[in-house]
């Protein structure tokens, strides 16, 4: 990677935001809630969004994203658009990732939403179903490029057969492994559940855990758990089926046998990769946003392989989508910006420069993503990466899933009892 270390740090920072790792941004609203929940509710009303654009003369499009330290590639897309369209100005506001959802709620309350928003893809269908995003089905079909996208990212932007956005970039999970430890133990990188289990057993010794991952009680934990469920051939609608139970039981056995630290219940994804970098864990399930950190921190040779498969291979899709709000009075101009950002030369420049993964098939085959073998693994994993497109109740559903895996792994309930309880909560929410 021919980038200076500072750039790597900057892009890592943005990725930390995206990966829900940095919780410091919570401080502001934390204080508001800590002092009084009422004050938080008031903030909701009191703080407006950025002002809407006026229709006379040059047009200003307002844009909200959560790139506190925006990558050069991203900014150059915006600049290039303004150069190509001198009558349109883009006014960008960056909001910390942890606050974006809240800020959108505030914007809806004060009717001051921006024209364009960047949305974390699991939240997209919830926002679509609440009616805050513009239906751009006709624009998208006139554009005719939907087939160029991977099905997972694309599905996250649709709701009830209509289009509410366009995928911009993606991420997914894969398995980091410590090549030195593998060599010493005489094992190769696992490709199946059985191999992952036996490899972890061989590598667990002298205070080193074979495997690390986050199973924290937040969306991060759900993000890490769902691939196992899918690999087992189950889904949220069949959570307490035998295959669903086998997925959770598989993870419980890792903790019971001491291959995965029970601390995983309290580890964020950042904590999990820290264990790997500190050589406290031989393998780690994590995303591409931690590649720069591992590159810099790891004092050993390491690599990335796709997640080992159960009944079938599966990874999980994260990433960012563009969406236009329903309150925008410049849907046409906003759409032209979204279209502009997806022109291959623009998009390639952005994704490569800012260390993202493409959501488009035609871009994924670009040699830029094959040069670095680790990035290539993540790009390949996108093929089997599924979105969390479970409709407007997803936040509640995710909460029930977190309770299930936490109570089974902490030993309070058996895997089947925990999943049974969760599926009763989830069933009416999956509509």
């Amino acid at each position, binding site marked *: 990677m021919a980038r200076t270390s500072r750039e790597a740090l900057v892009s890592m920072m943005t990725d930390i935001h995206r990966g829900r790792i940095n*919780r*410091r941004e*919570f*401080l502001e*609203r*934390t*204080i508001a*809630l*800590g*002092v*009084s*929940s*009422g*004050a*938080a*509710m*008031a903030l*909701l*009303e009191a703080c407006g969004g950025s002002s809407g654009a006026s229709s006379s003369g040059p047009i200003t499009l307002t844009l909200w994203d959560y790139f506190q330290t925006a990558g050069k590639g991203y900014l150059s897309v915006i600049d290039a658009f303004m150069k190509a369209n001198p009558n349109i100005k883009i006014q960008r506001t960056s909001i910390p990732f942890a606050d974006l*959802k*809240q800020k*959108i*709620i505030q914007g*809806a*309350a004060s*009717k001051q939403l921006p024209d364009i928003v960047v949305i974390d893809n699991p939240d997209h269908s*919830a*926002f679509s179903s*609440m*009616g*805050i995003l513009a239906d751009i089905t006709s624009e998208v079909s006139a554009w005719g490029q939907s087939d160029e996208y991977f099905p997972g990212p694309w599905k996250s932007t649709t709701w009830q057969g209509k289009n509410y956005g366009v995928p911009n970039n993606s991420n997914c999970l894969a398995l980091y492994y410590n090549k030195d430890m593998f060599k010493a133990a005489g094992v190769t990188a696992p490709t199946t559940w059985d191999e992952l289990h036996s490899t972890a057993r061989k590598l667990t010794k002298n*205070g080193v855990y074979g495997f690390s991952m986050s199973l*924290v*009680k*937040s969306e991060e934990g759900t993000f890490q758990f769902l691939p196992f469920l899918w690999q087992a051939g189950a889904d949220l609608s069949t959570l307490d089926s035998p295959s669903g139970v086998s997925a959770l039981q598989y993870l419980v056995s890792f903790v019971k046998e001491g291959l995965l*630290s*029970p*601390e995983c*219940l*309290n580890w964020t994804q950042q904590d999990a990769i820290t264990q790997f970098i500190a050589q*406290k864990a031989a393998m780690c399930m994590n995303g591409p946003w931690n590649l720069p950190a591992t590159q810099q921190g790891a004092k050993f040779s390491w690599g990335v392989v796709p997640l080992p498969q159960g009944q079938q291979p599966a990874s999980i899709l994260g990433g960012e989508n563009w969406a236009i709000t*329903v*309150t925008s009075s410049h849907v046409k101009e906003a759409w032209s910006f979204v279209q502009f950002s997806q022109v291959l030369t623009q998009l390639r420049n952005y994704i490569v420069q800012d260390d993202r993964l493409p959501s488009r098939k035609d871009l994924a085959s670009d040699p830029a993503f094959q040069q670095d073998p680790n990035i290539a693994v993540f790009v390949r994993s996108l093929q089997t990466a599924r979105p969390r497109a479970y409709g407007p109740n997803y*936040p*509640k559903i995710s*909460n029930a899933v*977190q*309770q299930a895996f*936490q*109570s089974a792994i*902490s030993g*309070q309930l058996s895997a089947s009892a925990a999943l049974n309880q969760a599926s009763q909560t989830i069933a009416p929410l999956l509509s």
Partner: protein
Amino acid sequence: MHLSTIVQSEQASEMTTAARQKGKRRQRFSKRIGPYLFLLPATLFMLMFLLYPVITMILYSVEQVNLGTLLTGNIPFIGLANYRTVLSDPVFISSLGTSLLFTGACLVFQFSIGFLLALLFNKRLPLVGLMRGLIMVAWVLPIVVSGTIFKWMFQSDSGIINYLLMSLGIIHAPIHWLINANITIWTVIIANIWIGIPFNMSLLLAGLQGIPATLYEAALLDGANGFNRFLYITLPLMRSTSLIVLMLGFIYTLNVFDLVYVMTGGGPVNATEVMPLYAYNVAFEQFNLGSGSAVAVLMFLLLLVVSVFYLFLTRKEEVA
């Protein structure tokens, strides 16, 4: 007396009384309105930043408020449905219990340790000023920072607490401070006690220093020993200070959000999900601002009950 002079003098006296009354009226006006003018800025501030949010919160709690309804502006009134949703949620009931346990345990230990330290620092010992300053660090440190440090210290595998306990031979297997559902609430309580001690100590110390030294001298002359002096002078005279410290402590502790959020996020499962965390999850993670407000109103009522009880206690004291 001549009639005209009488009339004249009466007129004159009437005039003076009129003038006097006018002056009086002006005086009365400034006496009546003036104080209110002085109150105006504070009142406006209270209305904008205290009353308005509270009223908004109460209104939201009886309406169906989510992103969709906020956007259309058509927010339906749904009566007590939010309260029913919240009260029938077992997670809310458990969060109420967790909050009361958390608040109760923190208050007992913060107050008693704070009191002992206040008694210690009330003595003229070398380096007392320095020690007092150092203890305030716990209060000054941002809670996100102290919460993160506690999280590290309480790690099962690599935390210093388990390391110390095991090297001293007190325990033989690591304690899962942050992941054993039965222990985690106590881990968070320990952290919060540490944070709350300086607050308790400094207020109680101020109270101790307000007790006239002459009382102790008199008791000493009468032959009262140290324990009796504490029991019959210090404790009764510290009553009102203690009540206010406990009362403020209750409000602060019931509202603790950040520490729990940083240390456990409410987990494992719901073991440490206190009420503010529950309200936050409902309002901002599940987008249900109505139910989130209902939780906030319930917390508000709970605090109101405690405040009224406090006022009742102090009123009795004033009469006595």
